């Protein structure tokens, strides 16, 4: 065991993990190189030396000073212990609200407002405070799952850096509070003049999936002779909409049904991570990936197949059965090569005789371009065959952030051709199922900037958009904005754009306001306030209504007294009517507030007719052979940087790189060797637009001629957490004709000689080369033998007497075949269990506190093309728990329900338990991460009052959400029954978008968890240690051998 290594000391390459099946697992490319001069850094579990960054005591206290301070405070604590306890007050309600019972949570159905996917959420509210967001299990979009950002959204509500009143910014970043009355008077004076003079008003927003808000904005703008709405979303799917217009004549983003797809081919689309509606897609995708006992009926031993072609290693790519590396910018060519193979070479589909299509495809025959693409021609042949065999039951997707720009439009057109040829359009892809309006448009944006520059815009209202950060300088938005008479920013805090506005019209958080969403046709979702606004905020809608009334505009905007009534009325006129209107509206409305949504989302859809004209309209980008190309991409945790001030998300390890608190330039190992760059070397990435300096990260699976840098970092004005974290990569983006070019950009990368420490968790808590941590098999092997890859030497002999579990015994099953690594569970756990964030320096010291981590393993001999495995790792609640036997004060105990309990107030912090835990899942509070400095008010309101907030010196770990068990048992006792199967869900299980985690009573042989755990694929981690964990993992099955 090599735990006591100093933080930056290096250890020679560990013995490689080798599972029984002969698959070699590794976490770092250096493990494969066997080069003693490039060792893998070993970060011990108890790294205690100061990190290089703070060794110079730049943070204020040297180590010695710190010890002195600690000594003094200890003495103070000793003295105060004898004093009488402090007086605490009980303040009752003046008049208790009927629905509030202290100690009992209320749940409200609402809609997540973090992005425009429109996932249904359930807001858990305690004593009037929202404390946790969970996916609404009945909502057709997300079906119970909720992504990491959605769950972390509760922290944004209590963000101490939110603006508390409207502000007079005066274009100079001013922060003088103004009352709404004063602001209204000033704004109205200007708006009246503009209206009288027929001036031009523009509303620039991000994508807003609320039909009512969109309608209201339109009504407001209708009151001005020159009113126009511009929608621009930096992470939006412009290219899908533009290509849809070119191919099918309608500007829509279709609704994808991954739950109907037996084969999925993706060209760079990160549909499980960041593209469009990842939770919905993960749900659908995973339904087709379940095998064995876990399978949906009629599946058994079949599963869908997923082939990915991508330039950067996305979360989605790590889940592919077969993944092929593409150079950023070549996605279109690969898609065309596949289309050539399908339509021309194999002569399939109704386009086989279409000369226009053929002509467009001819330059892309795999035989001629395979070498340039660096992908064997057989791959296209085989994929085309498989797609054709599964026509109407497959999905081809492409695009997303990593293929952004004109190349993205070209790619989407090719993808449309493929889907139409394969008859997927209308079957698995519903082009009629998405609201046609208000999608992001780059063309509108560039027109707006031109107009602004020409002094043609008199008032600009900016909502859910941060153009001063998300647009490259070359677009000149800032200079253009200076020429606009009145700039109003609608945001919740002072961001980059606000500093250039006249006023900040401070908006509330989505749990403080009414709203709605219609992610696609047939689903309407309501957003209801669950807490009175914390500050003097007013939503965009109420502001517009107030002004409209004063301006005496026409329509519902002035007829309705306020936004709530407007929304209700809009629902009455649209959703209620659609629903048939058989029940009286008040009852219907009440049911909507209870359920959270209306509609099933089960639209039939029909095939659209593909026009080959689009194929010619968008030229393919040129080959950039031998030149490095850049792909700018969003991380799951940050997207475009809108949530930069959320510490949970900053500290969430990236699912692929496992790096926290930073962005970096990902390059392949071969490229790194050629550049002479090591992990952590700062490199200068220069595009035609500008250059940035970022640390390099050597990423397996990257194309040798591509570089990837995450967007959303380097915020200049995000707040105390997010400002200055990482490097802003937006300046590298370039203008395009149909979209902002964010990928395929030609760049150079140079070494600067500087070094930078990246806080990656992938080397922490490693299991020291022990075997059989993860297991896998191919589908072929699995069909032949259900136990394939899961060979076991049988139960080891034991010197322990078995425990008895007479009542319940709690256990968990985790299906590695379903887990995509999306990390929603990590944040779900953090929110449920009051887990602190510790900051980058502490992560560098392996002091992160996540109870649940997702280990990512690579396998295969080739560093450039690894197979990837994600494994959620949490306390295994062992029957023979090694931690329990070494605790000198019995602070960790086994209970009669199989739980390994941790009693915080008894723990004295010896850390023996963590040392003895083979799974490395125990977390020690080296400092008080929960004091008022670390968790400034009102962030403390987000705590779950059902469990202790731990302080320094205490060990903690996963409890299987004991407070949730207690709550459900309490409810069962009220009715005198036992806890029913499925009634009890842990926080991680609840949040999982792929239902990979199942929890329940394993004493009940009929419970779902027992049945799944009994599957032939079931294994326990480190079985040979005879710890007898309560968590059973199911082997991963790869469908890559047909």
């Amino acid at each position: 065991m090599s735990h006591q290594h100093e933080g930056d000391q290096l250890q020679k390459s560990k013995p490689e993990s080798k599972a029984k099946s002969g698959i070699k697992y590794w976490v770092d490319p250096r493990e494969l190189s066997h080069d003693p001069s490039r060792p893998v850094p070993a970060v011990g579990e108890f790294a205690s030396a100061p990190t290089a960054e703070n060794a110079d005591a730049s943070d204020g206290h040297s180590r010695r000073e710190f010890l002195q301070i600690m000594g003094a405070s200890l003495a103070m604590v000793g003295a105060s212990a004898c004093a009488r306890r402090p007086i605490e007050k009980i303040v009752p309600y003046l008049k208790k609200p009927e629905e509030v019972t202290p100690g009992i949570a209320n749940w409200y159905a609402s809609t997540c407002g973090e992005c425009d996917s429109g996932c249904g959420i359930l807001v858990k509210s305690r004593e009037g405070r929202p404390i946790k967001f969970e996916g609404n299990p009945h909502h057709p979009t997300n079906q119970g799952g909720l992504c990491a950002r959605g769950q972390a959204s509760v922290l944004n509500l209590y963000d101490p850096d939110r603006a508390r009143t409207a502000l007079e910014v005066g274009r100079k970043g001013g922060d003088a509070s103004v009352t709404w009355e004063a602001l209204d008077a000033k704004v109205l004076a200007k708006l009246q003049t503009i209206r009288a003079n027929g001036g031009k008003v523009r509303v620039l927003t991000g994508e807003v999936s609320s039909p009512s808000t969109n309608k209201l904005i339109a009504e407001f703008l209708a009151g001005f002779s020159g009113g126009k709405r511009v929608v621009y979303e930096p992470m939006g799917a412009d290219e899908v909409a533009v290509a849809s217009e070119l191919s099918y004549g309608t500007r829509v983003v279709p609704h994808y049904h991954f739950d109907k797809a037996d084969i999925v081919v993706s060209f760079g689309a990160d549909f499980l991570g960041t593209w469009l509606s990842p939770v919905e897609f993960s749900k659908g995708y995973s339904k087709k990936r379940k095998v064995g006992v876990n399978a949906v009926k009629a599946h058994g031993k079949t599963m869908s197949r997923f082939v990915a072609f991508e330039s950067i290693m996305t979360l989605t790519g790590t889940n592919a059965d077969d993944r092929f590396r593409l150079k950023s910018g070549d996605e279109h060519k690969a898609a065309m090569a596949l289309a050539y193979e399908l339509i021309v070479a194999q002569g399939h589909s109704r386009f086989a005789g279409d000369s226009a299509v053929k002509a467009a495809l001819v330059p892309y025959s795999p035989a001629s371009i395979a070498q340039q693409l660096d992908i064997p021609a057989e791959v296209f042949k085989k994929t085309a065959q498989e797609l054709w065999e599964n026509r109407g039951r497959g999905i081809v997707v492409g695009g997303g952030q990593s293929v952004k720009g004109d190349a993205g439009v070209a790619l989407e057109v090719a993808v449309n051709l493929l889907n139409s040829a394969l008859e997927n359009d209308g079957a698995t892809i519903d082009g009629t199922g998405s609201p046609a309006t208000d999608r992001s448009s780059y063309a509108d944006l560039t027109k707006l900037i031109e107009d602004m520059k020409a002094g043609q815009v008199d008032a600009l209202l900016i909502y859910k958009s941060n153009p001063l950060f998300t647009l490259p300088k070359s677009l000149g938005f800032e200079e253009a904005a200076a020429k606009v008479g009145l700039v109003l920013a609608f945001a919740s805090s002072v961001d980059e754009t606000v500093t250039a506005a006249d006023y900040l019209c401070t908006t509330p958080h989505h749990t403080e306001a009414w709203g709605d969403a219609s992610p696609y046709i047939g689903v309407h979702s309501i957003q209801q306030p669950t807490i009175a606004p914390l500050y003097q905020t007013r939503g965009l809608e109420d502001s517009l209504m107030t002004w409209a009334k004063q301006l005496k505009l026409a329509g519902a905007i002035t007829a309705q007294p306020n936004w709530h009534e407007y929304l209700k009325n809009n629902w009455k006129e649209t959703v209620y009517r659609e629903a048939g209107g058989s029940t009286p509206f008040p009852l219907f409305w009440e049911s909507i507030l209870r359920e959270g949504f209306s509609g099933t989302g089960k639209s039939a859809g029909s095939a659209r007719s593909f026009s080959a004209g689009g194929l010619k309209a968008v030229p393919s980008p040129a080959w950039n052979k031998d030149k490095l190309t850049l792909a700018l991409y969003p991380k799951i945790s940050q997207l475009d940087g809108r949530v930069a001030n959320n510490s949970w998300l900053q500290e969430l390890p990236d699912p692929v790189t496992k790096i926290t608190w930073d962005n970096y330039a990902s390059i392949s190992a071969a490229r790194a060797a050629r550049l002479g760059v090591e992990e952590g070397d700062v490199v200068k990435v220069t595009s035609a637009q500008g250059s940035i300096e970022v640390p390099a990260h050597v990423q397996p699976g990257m194309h040798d001629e591509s570089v990837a840098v995450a967007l959303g970092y380097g915020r200049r004005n995000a707040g105390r957490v997010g400002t200055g974290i990482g490097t802003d990569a937006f300046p590298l983006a370039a203008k395009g004709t149909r979209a902002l070019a964010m990928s395929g950009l030609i760049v150079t990368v140079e070494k600067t000689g500087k070094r930078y420490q990246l806080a990656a968790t992938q080397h922490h808590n490693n299991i020291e080369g022990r075997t059989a941590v993860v297991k896998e098999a191919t589908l072929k092997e699995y069909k032949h033998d259900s136990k394939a890859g899961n060979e076991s030497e049988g139960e080891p002999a034991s010197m322990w007497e078995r425990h008895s579990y007479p009542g319940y015994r709690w256990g968990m099953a985790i299906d590695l075949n379903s887990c995509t690594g999306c990390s929603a569970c990590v944040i779900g756990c953090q929110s449920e269990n009051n887990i602190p964030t510790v900051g980058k320096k502490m992560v560098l010291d392996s002091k992160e506190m996540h109870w649940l981590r997702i280990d990512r393993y690579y396998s295969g001999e080739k560093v450039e093309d690894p197979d990837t495995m994600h494994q959620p790792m949490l306390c295994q609640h062992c029957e023979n728990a090694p931690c329990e036997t070494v605790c000198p004060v019995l602070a960790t105990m086994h209970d009669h329900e199989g739980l390994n309990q941790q009693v915080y107030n008894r723990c004295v912090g010896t850390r023996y338990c963590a040392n003895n835990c083979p799974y490395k899942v125990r977390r020690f509070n080296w400092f008080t991460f929960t004091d008022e400095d670390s968790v400034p008010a009102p962030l403390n309101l987000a705590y779950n009052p059902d469990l202790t907030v731990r302080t320094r010196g205490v060990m903690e770990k996963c409890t299987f959400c004991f407070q949730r068990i207690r709550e459900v048992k309490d409810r069962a006792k009220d009715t005198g029954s036992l806890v029913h199967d499925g009634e009890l869900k842990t926080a991680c299980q609840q949040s999982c978008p792929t239902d990979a985690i199942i929890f329940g009573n394993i004493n009940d042989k009929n419970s779902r968890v027992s049945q799944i755990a009994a599957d032939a694929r079931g294994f326990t981690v480190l079985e040979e240690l005879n710890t007898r964990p309560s968590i059973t993992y199911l082997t991963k099955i790869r469908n890559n051998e047909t």
Partner: protein
Amino acid sequence: MTSDSENSNTMLKILVPLIVVLLIAGAGLNTLLNVGNNQGYAPVQPIPFSHKIHAGANNIPCMYCHSNVEKSKHATIPSMNVCMNCHSVVKPDSPYIKQLKVLYNEKKEPFQWIQVHKLPDFVNFNHKRHVLKGVDCTACHGDVKKMSVIRQEKTLNMGFCLDCHRGVSTPDYLRHLVQQNGNPATGVPPGGIAPISCNTCHN
């Protein structure tokens, strides 16, 4: 003589410091053992609310005011409108009731009572489960009906809880009520009457 007095001197030299040391140690130990023990705590409240008058003389049931005791883990202190249910007509001339009315009607501020029965934050005590089992309020709170100033009667420390759960100090009426003598399925040890698993009480 000299040797005797020397002897007694020696004895004194040993005994006196020994006694002093023992006394100090005893006092220290006593203090340590009672850290966090607030038995007998009876602070002065913002108004001299008397349980003796309300619960005793007037026989108002506990749950009229502490209405959530059967629903929640918190018994809850009544909101001010519950006080006003009666006191809008009862004893309106009392200076304290006047004070109450000023707070309720004009200032719109509730009283700030001083908490008497307080468990540490790492302890989860569920009133509902105990009351629904039939545990009398007096088992932990003492005979409140006789207290004009509310006072912490029991130690409310871990031993106090465990003694009852284990069946050591359990009142007889409870023993009869709880007919489960050592039910391992619920974590109740042989001879005990309620679970004693760590996380039964600890968060």
